[in-house]
């Protein structure tokens, strides 16, 4: 079954490569070629940058009822970043719904929106690809060795679009080191704008 899903996904990508996405405007997004990606069961589709590495673990997706792809920028360092597109199906138990996801990602564990290591922008109501959405932006330091006494950390900048659906919800996110964030922010916006999910 896993092979069938994988093969189906490969075929979808191959088909999609033939019908590449609309050229983007400006910056990295303008230079990048896009192709269409369709998740199993047509949970969602979107244009993804051809040069980015796409990965997925179908077995884990089925286990958690969270169907997601991860896109890794072709350049590391100052032009790096990771885009994730995820569908949290109605039977997923990790979050009770989109509001739980928003509440859990727009504040730290103290319920703060600002601390010495984190800054969360207020959650914004917005529209994405013609549907209602919530936007979360945040910057945070992340420790690399939490169980040892080393304090080495990396500074991340992240943006999420959370889209409610009749059954489950969607999360589109972009995460990069703060200095690398601007280089590929436009690519993420282009992916987000091309997003189509179940109502």
């Amino acid at each position, binding site marked *: 079954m896993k092979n069938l899903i994988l093969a189906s996904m490969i075929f979808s990508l191959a088909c999609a490569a033939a019908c590449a996405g609309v050229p983007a405007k400006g910056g990295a997004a303008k230079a990048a070629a896009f192709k269409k990606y369709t998740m199993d069961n047509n949970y969602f589709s979107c244009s993804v940058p051809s040069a980015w590495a796409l990965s997925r673990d179908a077995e884990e997706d089925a286990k958690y009822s969270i169907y997601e792809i991860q896109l890794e920028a072709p350049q*590391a360092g100052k032009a790096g970043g990771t885009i994730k597109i995820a569908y949290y199906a109605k039977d997923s138990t990790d979050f009770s719904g989109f509001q739980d996801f928003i509440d859990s990602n727009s504040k730290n564990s103290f319920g703060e929106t600002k601390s010495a*290591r984190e800054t969360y922008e207020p959650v914004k109501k917005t529209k994405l690809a013609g549907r209602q959405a919530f936007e979360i932006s945040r910057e945070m330091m*992340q*420790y690399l060795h939490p169980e040892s006494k080393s304090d080495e950390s990396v500074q991340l900048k992240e943006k999420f679009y959370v889209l409610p659906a009749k059954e489950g919800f969607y999360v589109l996110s972009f995460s990069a080191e703060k200095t690398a964030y601007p280089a590929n922010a436009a690519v993420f916006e282009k992916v987000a704008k091309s997003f189509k999910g179940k109502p």
Partner: protein
Amino acid sequence: MNLSAAKTLRLAAITAGLLCFGLNVDAGADAAGRLARYEAAISSGDPAAAMDFLQDGEARGLAEKDMQKAAELTAEAEALKDLKELLAMPWKAAEANKLNQSLAIRIDIDKPLSKAGVGPEPEKLLAWLGKYLPAYPAGKKDAVKKAIRQWDIVFGTMTDTRGMDWAQATQQYGQGVNLTRANWEGMTLRERNTILNTLMDTEPAFLTYNDEKLASMKDQVAVMKTVNEVKNSGALSASQLGQLAGKSFADQVYLLGSFFDGSNVAVSADLKAKVNAARDSMPKEVLPAQQRDLLGGMLTSAVAKELAGTTAGDRALAAGPLKIEVRPCDGSYSRYDAASGAIVLDSETIQQYMRMKGYTAESVMKSREQVAEIAKYMSPSVVYEAAHKMQADWAAKQGVYKPHVQEDEIEAMSLEGVYTNEKMRQDPAFKGMLDSGRQFSSYASKKSEIATNYRGSRAKGFSQTVRKFYVPGLPSLDGAAAQVRSAISGELARRAGLPPAEKAELDSSGLTLNDALEMSPEELAGSVQEIQTAALAKIGRDLQDLAAYRGRYEASETATRGTLTSSTAPAGKKSAPPAL
């Protein structure tokens, strides 16, 4: 796209998927033919063939007619699958040291990957990437090149020779060691790391290849900055400044702590707390061995009260009676001592808390309230180690070999993350303690951050974070099993050719099963020639089918997975889209 077109495309996709499926596993060919093809492809490192083989029950069954050959083939296939999954993670050049740790335990002499042609020379990984993952992004390839310590990256492209000091043989006296590109390219990653660790002792530029050493240097710089802030504040007397002159920074920060003690040095409370958190303990704040033993006993009952009433805490308590000990844990906040069954809490972290609160060893011994505070403060670490206790107890009960793997850390850190979140919701004193502590103590800051990360990512996302950021140097369960099985099957084959007397001698005087069960995968793989045959065969059987191991991890995760969900929304109720 209209509905009809979509339906057609979907049908085509399904059809193509079926065709691809058929091609992938070559279902039309007989099992013997497929097995032969798998053997050839896996020996040349083909990850797709490796994954197909692992899913082809018929071919695996056929391979098991020769158990040793089957074990080797399975080990190589699992190692290739594991390598592909490792490299699929979003590695950036800045994370090359973590990738280096992950690769160093996988690519080495006698490892399954080397038998499949990916090693032991690290550059073979680049060739493998080019052959089997040609679309691998350039940025990630850069991270891989840095991770394998490619000569050009480490020493530049302008030279093929590098001189270096080696112990007493220094270049200054014309006795240094010359390292050539050819030497380097013949070394394993482990050997390259040893050379780099030696180089960084004398040349700070090489610290970039060791996150721990680099972070330690940064910590020292932070302490220097704090000391200078106090010295430049104008709050110290000329005599006090005189005492600081010429001392090391560690000594200066200690002396500053003694100046603050019981005096009115006019620097901010924040700066005082920073100095007190950074300095060594004063004699009255140090817990001597006897008092540490007493405190351990007192914490054993205090911690049980602290954990009760939370889902994760109750789960930790269900691990059985928790025995707490207080001892130095070197660079960690805690550890589980499987030999004594005790959870060991780091005495320096406890002493740091005492310094921040102004407690002394004597006051703690006399105050049940201060002990309860320490139990509260350290309780996330107790939960984390309780998960390790459960893992060790399960292995002992089952009587199986249980290597320390990434899945263990995912389980332990997830349990801790759930506990800290629950506790912060239920217990304002606990929340306040982490809140004030995080400004001065990386322990409190890290416990808070694990809670934030678990809360935002939950079971699936958090497991990805643990694998990638927190413990990339540990093998996965699949990787560890593959490594051990491969070493065992090779050794059993070697023994089959030994004279009976030599084999009997080995079986009577070799290391026992109990000795082997204590070993890490690395140690076991490197010691197979010294272990009794029956012990090797037993461990090989343990690792032949990993379903029992996986079942335990899954059961553990299921026990806590919904905890935060049920506390943020009524169980089973899904949010409906809001009106915008």
